[in-house]
Every structure is written in C-alpha cells, then in structure tokens.
C-alpha cells in the first residue's frame, strides 16, 4: 500500500517541463510503437492467412466425406468461374472431388447472427441428392457449456450427416426428428440451434439455384 500512496505525483520543487518536451515524448513513443506494430503485423500477416487457409482446407475435407481434392469457384454475374489464388471479394464456393475425380458436392460458407456473436460455418451440399452431408462451425462465441454444443455435441452433429434441404430445413424439439429435413435442437440452446439451421438455410438460399444447375463432371 505504501507504494500507491507515494505514486501521487508531486509536482512541487521540480520545474515544469516545456510543452514541447511533453509532446515530443509522446510523439517519439508513438513513432517507435508504430514501427513495432507495423513490423509485427507484416511479419504475422502471411502466417495468419496461412493458418486460416489451412483451417478452411481441413474444414472442406471434413464436410465433404470422401473428398480428396477441391477447386474454388467464384460467383460472377450468375455463373461459376474457377478462382485462382486469394479471395477476390466475390462469393466463393468449393467443389470437392473424390479419388476418381468425380465431383462429390460443394462446400458452402455461410454466417448468421447467433446468441452472442456471428456464427460462421461451412457445410457440404450434394446437389444430386439435395442433401447436406456435413457441417463444421468455423467461428462462434456461443455460451460455453450450452451454445457451444453446436460444435461439440456429437448427437447434434449427427443431424448433418444426411439432411434433406427441401422444402426447407426445420428445427424441431430434441427427439422429435421424424422427417429427413428436420434437425433435433439442443436442449437449453435453442437460439444457437436456430442459428445453425438459419446458417444452413441462408447458405442454401444463396447457392442452391446456382449449384443445382451445375452438371456433374
């Protein structure tokens, strides 16, 4: 406690430093700090982007079972155009292929508001059967222990192994799933469950029309 009492500034005695000196001190501190920040940013940026790309890549393989290779496509004036390299700002979708080179389906990214913050995810869609074959939540700040079950609870994940998307994905109370387009909610995490369903429906609304037209290669 002694230290704290001493820390009250005692300005008597010493002459007041000039305003120039005060401004200069802060200016120098800010300048040096700026250099460090820019350096750290430039150094870490490629690493951060690489980590993100790796996570996305792993997610694509996860949501499209059997997928061994994928291509990125951008949506440009209503048509899919093969994309090369970094993001172009256009909506992007990934086509996954199996060992024989047959297209299995598409990995679609989507994001919707959740309970706390945005819930972003990627899911695998097979246009031929009109089903969702896998889902991975990439970003979420849902409540630990409750809402985070949307990516931790195995039973909930089981909803997305073979989920029909037509006419629309519907959330039902836990244990009441009877139709292929229904998702069992998580008890105690209705809003998070609803967010996941809305994530899928939003993604489908954005992409279904385009993807269903794509011929199987």
């Amino acid at each position: 406690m002694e230290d704290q009492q001493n820390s009250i500034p005692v300005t008597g005695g010493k002459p007041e430093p000039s305003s120039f000196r005060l401004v200069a001190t802060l200016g120098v501190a800010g300048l040096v700090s700026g250099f460090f920040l820019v350096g750290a940013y430039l150094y870490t940026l490629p690493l951060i982007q690489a980590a993100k790309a790796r996570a996305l890549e792993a997610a694509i393989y996860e949501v499209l079972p059997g997928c061994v290779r994928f291509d990125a496509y951008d949506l440009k004036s209503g048509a899919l155009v093969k994309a090369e390299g970094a993001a172009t700002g256009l909506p992007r979708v990934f086509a996954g292929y199996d060992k024989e080179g047959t297209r299995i389906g598409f990995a679609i990214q989507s994001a919707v508001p959740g309970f706390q913050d945005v819930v972003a995810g990627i899911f695998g869609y097979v246009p031929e059967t009109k089903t969702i074959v896998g889902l991975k939540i990439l970003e979420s700040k849902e409540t630990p222990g409750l809402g985070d079950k949307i990516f931790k609870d195995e039973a909930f994940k089981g909803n997305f192994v073979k989920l029909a998307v037509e006419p629309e994905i519907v959330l039902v109370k836990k244990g009441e799933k009877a139709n292929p387009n229904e998702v069992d909610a998580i008890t105690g995490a209705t809003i998070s469950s609803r967010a996941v369903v809305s994530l899928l429906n939003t993604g489908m609304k954005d992409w279904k029309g385009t993807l269903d037209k794509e011929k199987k290669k």
Partner: protein
Amino acid sequence: MVLGMCPTMAVTNTAINSLAMGMSTLVVLLGSSTLVSLFRKAIPEQVRITTYIVIIATFVTVIDFLLAALVPGVHKELGAFIPLIVVNCLILGRAEAFASRQRAGLAFIDALGMGIGFTFALLAIGIIREVLGSGTLFTIPLFGKGFEPWVIMVLPPGGFLTLGFLLLGFNRLRKKT
C-alpha cells in the same frame, strides 16, 4: 491485494486458456516494466501514464498478432480478452508503483515474479473450473461417462464462485499463521 483479476472470469474456464492468458500477461508485464524502468528518467511525470499505456498497448498488440499467427486455436478461444490486457490494472499498477522508480534489473525481476504469480492464480481457477465444469483437465477426460458436468462452472458465475472460495481458503490460511 487481488489486482488485475478482471480477465479471470471470462477466460479461465479451461486450464489451457488460463495458461495462455497468464503467459501473455507475463510477457507483456516483462516487456513493459523493463522499458518503463529503462526510460523512467526520460519520461516527464505529466505524461507518464499515457506513455506507459502506449508501451503496454504496443506489447499487447504484438502478442495478439503472434498468438493469432502461431497458435490460432488458442487465439480464437481468448478472442477479445487479449487486447483487454492493455487495461489490466496489474500491468499499469506495477509500471507506476514499481518499475517507474527502480533499476531495470529489479523491474524485470519484479515483473517476472508478478507474472508467474498471476499465471499460477489463473491456472488454479482454470483447473478447478475445467475439472468441475467439463470433467476434463487440459482436455483429457478425468471421469467416466457418468459424470455430469457442472455447466455453471464454465460460465462467468463459476469464475466468481471459484475465486471467492479460493480467497476464502487463502484468508483462512493467512489468519492462522
């Protein structure tokens, strides 16, 4: 004194998060205390707090970038709480109360001790909350399937509860001696 426990509630729901938070704070504390001490004669009294904040914020931001680049998983879990180290009263408190009036060597040792202590404190809370709230320790399951996790322990109220009980225990020990 229970300085700088502000981040405890949010991030100590698992042992690994506690450890990451403690280590990040330790590094920031070491860097800022040493720098503050080195430049203590050059920094005019009137702008000292502002200068300290600039120094601390720089270290925190660099740590934030580094964590995002090297351990993206941990960075994702800690989220907004890394930038919030800037306003942790422990760091500014030590800069103001100790580093600004001592030699750099002493300031470094002080920061080291404070940082390690802080890490231990966070870790203690994190271990208790993870074991009771998730039934795991460093994500290794401890109990069989029959264990029902105490969900409240991983939520913020569990942090307050744990901190309260720990302080109760420590005060009892202190009184005895």
